[in-house]
């Protein structure tokens, strides 16, 4: 995928008009090469998640343009719905629907959005469920699963619709270290399988491993961006140096 973003602004205004509007993305630009995995890093509140929500077609920016492989993202909700059906998104937590079992969660988008029959959907789920070692948990409800299992089911739900791209918004930040490991391992396998994805994460070691390019986002702009090796070598920007020192020694 080639991602190009031009002058992206996201400003939130208080509907009551009591607080001044907040500018979360402030004219953000980026132009990637033809890559498989882009990782977004940077301090909290810098605009990473807001950017990812726009990329995933969940929010419409105030102004600016975003294009994947030269195709601009739509702005109208009808076209955005169609776009969201071609990609998949995994959030920090609470991705799964608590009233459904893991299996029913996996079936829901296949049957209701992608119009597969239940047997076709089951057929498609069976193999990846096995490969990621989740078959034993298929009939459990989210309340009976560990945080790591929930996230892995959520990633699986995103995968089985065969999206053209996957968006992952800090998929491990709500997990303890042990579970973080199993989720990162799964994302690592996605990389090996050739899945294209944009990942927001604080796991710098992991970012270094899977990213083709890394973008450092702070104050609503891209502070630095480049191929992964360059990014870690070239620590000229004091903000990046500070951020790396904090996150790597945390």
């Amino acid at each position, binding site marked *: 995928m080639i991602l190009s973003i031009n002058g992206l602004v996201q400003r939130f205004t208080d509907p009551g008009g009591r607080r001044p509007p907040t500018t979360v993305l402030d004219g953000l630009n980026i132009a990637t090469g033809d890559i498989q995995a882009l990782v977004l890093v940077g301090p909290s509140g810098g605009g990473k998640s807001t950017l990812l929500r726009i990329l995933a077609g969940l929010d419409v920016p105030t102004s600016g343009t975003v294009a994947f492989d030269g195709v601009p993202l739509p702005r109208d909700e009808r076209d955005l719905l169609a776009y969201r*059906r071609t990609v998949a998104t995994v959030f920090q937590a609470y*991705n799964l*629907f*608590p009233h459904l079992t893991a299996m029913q969660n996996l079936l829901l988008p296949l049957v209701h*959005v992608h119009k597969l029959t239940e047997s076709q959907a089951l057929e498609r789920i069976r193999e990846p469920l096995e490969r990621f070692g989740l078959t034993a948990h298929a009939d459990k*409800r989210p309340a009976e699963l560990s945080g790591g299992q929930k996230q892995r089911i959520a990633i699986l739900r995103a995968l089985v619709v065969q999206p053209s791209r996957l968006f992952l918004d800090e998929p491990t930040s709500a997990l303890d270290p042990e579970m973080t490991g199993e989720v990162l391992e799964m994302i690592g396998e996605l990389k090996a399988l050739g899945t294209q994805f944009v990942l927001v994460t604080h796991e710098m070691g992991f970012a270094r491993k899977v990213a083709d390019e890394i973008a450092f986002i702070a104050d609503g702009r891209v502070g630095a961006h480049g191929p992964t090796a360059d990014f870690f070598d070239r620590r000229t920007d004091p903000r990046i140096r500070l951020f790396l020192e904090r996150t790597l020694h945390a």
Partner: protein
Amino acid sequence: MPRWFAYTLVLALLAAGGAWAFASLDMNWNWDVVWEYRGVFWRGWWMTVALSVASLLASSLFGIVAAVMLRSRFTLAQAAARVYVELIRGTPLLVQLLIGWYVIAAALHMGTDQRYLVGILVLSLFSGAYMAEIFRGGLDAIPRTQLDSARAIGLTPGQSLWLVVLPQAVRIVLPAVAGQLVSLVKDSSLLSVISIAEFTFSARNVNSATYSTLESYLPLAVGYLALTLPLSGLSRWLEHRFRYEAA
């Protein structure tokens, strides 16, 4: 203590207390006369059943529509629903029935045979206002993240309401809705003020014909319990079922 024993004990104590109170009245019970009127009770009871079922369905509908309006982005819809809920909840059903029948129905030149329709409508609007707030609370209790997830997997707004929000909201509102429905059944007794021959109306008629007050009204308690206890039971069964669903 086993459950059946606890219930038996409580009911036995209640019966003993009741028996003592009634015995101390030194009443001359006059059940024979009232028995003569069993047909009147029976017809009234069925009328109450019919009114309750109709109002139960209509008030759920009013409640859902008003709850959605209360949460609407459109200020006019929101204002209309808010005025409806506050006006109805803040005034007595008795007054609403009198205005509904003697003012609004009269202004619309409705015939006397339409009192049943008016009665059901007023009762449903009354109960619907309470339902609206119950449903609104249930919908509000579904976290935003669930809606985000629903959008992210590509569900339409209608699908996310039907497949994600409602199944979770139903579980939350069930106990409160059941309580409201029990109230609705008992509130239907007020329809007697616009001369609808429902259960309470029948008891009042029997009383004025026989002068046997307690004998006329005690069957009323039994008759209403026969309606409200199954409702409570149904609600507990549904709650149990949905809890299992969500565990």
